[in-house]
């Protein structure tokens, strides 16, 4: 008996939103409802859902936020795709860990919608920094300063790290996606195949000619179809070129582009004209579900190419294969996982165009060949893509969720940090005897907030540090986790801290600066505050240029942004000629990324080397990661 939760909250668009994920989840709802009460949260602008059972509660995001405390201990499922319809759920997803269903692995466009699409280039740069550390800053600045953005960058540069890191569990449709996510350090990734749509059973392959008649397609020549959005990555241009050659060889056919154009991205009509196939190609525009299935079954085979891939699984492909149609795919990403005898899989290499042309010719000419592949595909989908099984797998994963975060704010994108008023620091200073043997600059400059749940106190002078933390800043002893400079990465490794105050010496960084700072990164939560005080010795032996401005660059290379820096002492005696012998540099920084550049420009040692530090091990306390 599989455990299923009595109730789930699902963030997902619903029909009539023209969105594949909406249709996908709507098909699952009846199977969920057999055992589990379902509450669906949709965006505030969502049209009134259609075809949803009365026993399903549908809440707008606004309604959910006012009632969130009621759902705090209910498992949350988030369906994330690389499109605007799932943007509304991001603040909740990033604040309340749940089961994240990653329909598209890339998610660059989804993140872009939260900043660049709104004209916020600085926000886009910070989003890139969150995902790619120092390198992300460079890419973002290239865009904001020079307008540089490669045409395929959104495809090539995944932007999913924050979403993956926020998830308690992840569900994907392919091993390709699971492997990529596991590489980011997530330990709870489950592969559940894209289910075969139950709606498909209303349509009969044997009615192919009837459907052709209804759709106005010729009955006496092969019909080849590409389904879905007509985008550049679908390699329609390559298909048109191959078909153009076949036409010149005397083959006749109809090629249907069954989907909506994206004219801002790809001018398909120009390529149709250039290929001389105006009489052979039909562009349908957006199709409703009925038309969609009829076009599919009216076809002899399907061409479903994607290069590059964002790691997305194709619901269209599952439907086509489940209905016994032979499909042509590029052998990359999730498509590479199809059994070899269930689809025509083309390698993306220098022979791609030649092989595509050959396979299209064979499929047009050899009915037995295409029918056999289609039958194999149908049997495979029936065996592995049953909606009964996949819906149970979802609920089984949801039952394992443990989060019960209750929101104390609706501003999920903000954090509140309390600091002492300046006068209180001056009062405290005047009433206490301050030792000048240790660094006092960090608290005099008021750099550490007073309201984080725990502070990692790293220094070789714990007494002084802890005295300031308790007496001035008001922290209780149990909130302060102390470690020495030599072994903090071991002593503090069980927790992720929302703040760290470090007092060290420049010589601590001398051997391997980024490595040392990366160790600080490892024990800190995303968004955590770092206060780093470094004593500047008179003499320092190091192969690196550890000037003050370079320390800032090293902090950025180690995944931080520098908010403020001060140097001192503040209390230089102007009556004495002696130079101060206790100079300190203090940096206030925010942890922005798990990505570290091991070989930054400051090293003057060639190209960057990126390293992802995140490791979602079962930490005993993940302290204060958000203000939710």
């Amino acid at each position, binding site marked *: 008996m599989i455990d299923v939760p009595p109730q789930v909250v699902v963030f997902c668009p619903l029909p009539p939103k023209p969105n594949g994920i909406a249709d996908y989840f709507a098909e699952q709802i009846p199977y969920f409802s057999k055992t589990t009460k379902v509450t669906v949260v949709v965006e505030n602008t969502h049209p009134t859902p259609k075809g949803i059972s009365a026993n399903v509660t549908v809440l707008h995001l606004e309604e959910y*936020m006012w009632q969130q405390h009621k759902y705090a201990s209910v498992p949350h499922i988030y369906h994330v795709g690389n499109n605007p319809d799932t943007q509304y759920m991001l603040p909740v*997803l990033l604040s309340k860990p749940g089961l994240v269903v990653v329909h598209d692995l890339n998610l660059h466009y989804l993140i872009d919608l939260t900043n660049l699409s709104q004209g916020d280039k600085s926000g886009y740069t910070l989003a890139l920094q969150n995902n790619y550390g120092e390198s992300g800053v460079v890419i973002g600045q290239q865009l904001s300063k020079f307008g540089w953005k490669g045409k395929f960058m959104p495809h090539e540069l995944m932007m999913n790290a924050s979403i993956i890191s926020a998830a308690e569990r992840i569900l994907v449709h392919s091993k390709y996606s699971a492997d990529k996510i596991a590489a980011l350090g997530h330990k709870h990734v489950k592969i559940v195949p894209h289910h075969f749509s139950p709606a498909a059973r209303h349509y009969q392959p044997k009615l192919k000619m009837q459907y052709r008649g209804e759709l106005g397609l010729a009955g006496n020549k092969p019909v080849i179809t590409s389904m879905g959005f007509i985008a550049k990555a679908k390699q329609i241009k390559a298909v048109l070129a191959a078909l153009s050659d076949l036409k010149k060889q005397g083959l006749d056919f109809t090629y249907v582009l069954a989907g909506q154009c994206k004219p801002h991205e790809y001018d398909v009509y120009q390529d149709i004209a250039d290929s001389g196939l105006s009489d052979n190609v039909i562009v349908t525009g957006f199709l409703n579900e009925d038309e969609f299935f009829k076009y599919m079954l009216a076809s002899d085979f399907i061409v479903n190419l994607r290069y590059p891939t964002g790691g997305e699984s194709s619901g269209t492909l599952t439907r086509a294969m489940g209905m016994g149609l032979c499909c042509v795919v590029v052998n990359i990403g999730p498509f590479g996982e199809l059994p070899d005898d269930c689809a025509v899989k083309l390698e993306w290499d220098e022979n791609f165009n030649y092989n595509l042309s050959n396979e299209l010719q064979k499929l047009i000419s050899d009915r037995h060949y295409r029918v056999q592949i289609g039958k194999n595909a149908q049997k495979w989908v029936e065996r592995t893509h049953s909606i009964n099984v996949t819906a149970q797998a979802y609920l089984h994963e949801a039952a394992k969720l443990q989060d019960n975060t209750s929101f104390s704010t609706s501003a999920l994108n903000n*954090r509140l940090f309390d600091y002492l008023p300046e006068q209180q620091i001056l009062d405290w200073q005047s009433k206490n005897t301050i030792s000048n043997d240790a660094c006092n600059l960090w608290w005099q400059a008021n750099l550490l907030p007073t309201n984080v749940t725990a502070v990692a106190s790293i220094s070789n002078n714990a007494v002084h540090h802890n005295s300031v933390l308790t007496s001035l800043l008001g922290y209780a002893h149990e909130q302060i986790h102390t470690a020495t400079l030599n072994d903090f990465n071991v002593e503090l490794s069980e927790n992720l801290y929302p703040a760290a105050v470090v007092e060290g010496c420049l010589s601590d960084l001398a051997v391997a600066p980024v490595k040392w700072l990366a160790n600080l990164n490892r024990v800190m939560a995303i968004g955590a505050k770092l206060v780093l005080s470094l004593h500047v010795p008179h003499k320092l032996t190091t192969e690196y240029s550890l000037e003050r401005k370079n320390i800032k660059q090293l902090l950025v290379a180690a995944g931080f942004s520098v908010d403020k820096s001060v140097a001192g002492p503040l209390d230089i005696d102007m009556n004495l000629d002696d130079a101060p012998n206790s100079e300190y540099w203090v940096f206030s920084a925010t942890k922005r990324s798990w990505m570290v550049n091991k070989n930054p420009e400051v090293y003057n040692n060639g190209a960057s080397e990126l390293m992802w530090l995140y490791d979602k091990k079962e930490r005993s306390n993940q302290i204060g990661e958000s203000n939710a």
Partner: protein
Amino acid sequence: MHNNVSSVSSPLDVAATHHKINVDILTTSAFLRSLPNVGEVVLDTMPQSIISVLAMAAGARIAYLANYSLCQKYGLEYVEASKAAGVQPLCFSTTERDVFITPRVEAGFERLATKAERIKLRTPDNYLNGRANISWVSLSELTLPLLDGMNKSVQKHRPLISGKVSNSSVESIISWCEKYGYFPLTNLLEPLNASSASGYCWFVPNNTLLKSVRALLAADNEVAEFSCSLPKFAQQFWPELTESSDKLAKQTKDYITHARRWYYLDKLVNIGMYPIETDGTNYWRWVGSKGVRLFIPLRAIGFYTVKFNVFSVADGMKRVGLKCFLNGVLKKDLDASAGSEIAINHFTESEGELVELFIVPQTSVQVFDRALNVSISDLAVYWKGEVL
């Protein structure tokens, strides 16, 4: 509206039978009129509140304190909206601190690069002591710790103090008033005592002020039979408050006579509206693509109707689907066109309530650098029509 009061009542009781908000309006107006040389008033409320409008009409210099609960709830968006409406980023608190509201860093949140904002939390004494001629301090809630933080300034300024007092703290607050020579009164000008229910109260610094207010409100009069409309009743019992030839009286009379209030769109603390526009006759504000959240103080218990007009829809649109949520409840889901009037009923259950009206358009169109859908005008709250 006509009403018959069978037993003997005070004129304020009669006003309350129409709607309790009338008591708020009349007492506030009476106190403002009675204050000698109205100087600075410190209001822990929004610029769009009735208290604020009356204080402006009385010629007071107003210092608005930020609503810290809303700063916490809506973060930087609220702080920015509040500052744009002239509210300083400062709140009264028993413990002093500087709160920095900062954007989180995870990709997927909007406005990652927004500048952090600082809210100063200060004791009342810290803020008030350095100022001159404080006439009135109006706080959303009066607690003993907060009053204790006002000890120095009450001795220096002797301001009128008002705010909601909860039943559980009445006794300690009465002791505080005795210690500092204040007369603690309910909104109906009855002495605050241990059995008083939670409600809005006035702490009056001297007997002269109290006498003046009682006289203006005809508090010592008795009404045995009441059969005329409230405006006529006002002429009879509160002539100075409603018939004097000054702004305060005109504003007071307008509220009492029409039982509704308009909102000045330009001073409205809101999240999501573009700045005000006008053609010389009409005023309107366009709603952003994510909708607008309006904060509407409905201080007195009772029924209200919040109304607004759709002034226009964006070019290329004839109708726009609008959803209206009030305090997180979907109240209206309709297709609106230019000229549509939208009315939403609400019952305020407790004193000092602030409702949130969230208006969301289903679609928007991009017009140059703005995403537009509908513009709204004539935002008003009505309280006529229900007799308690």
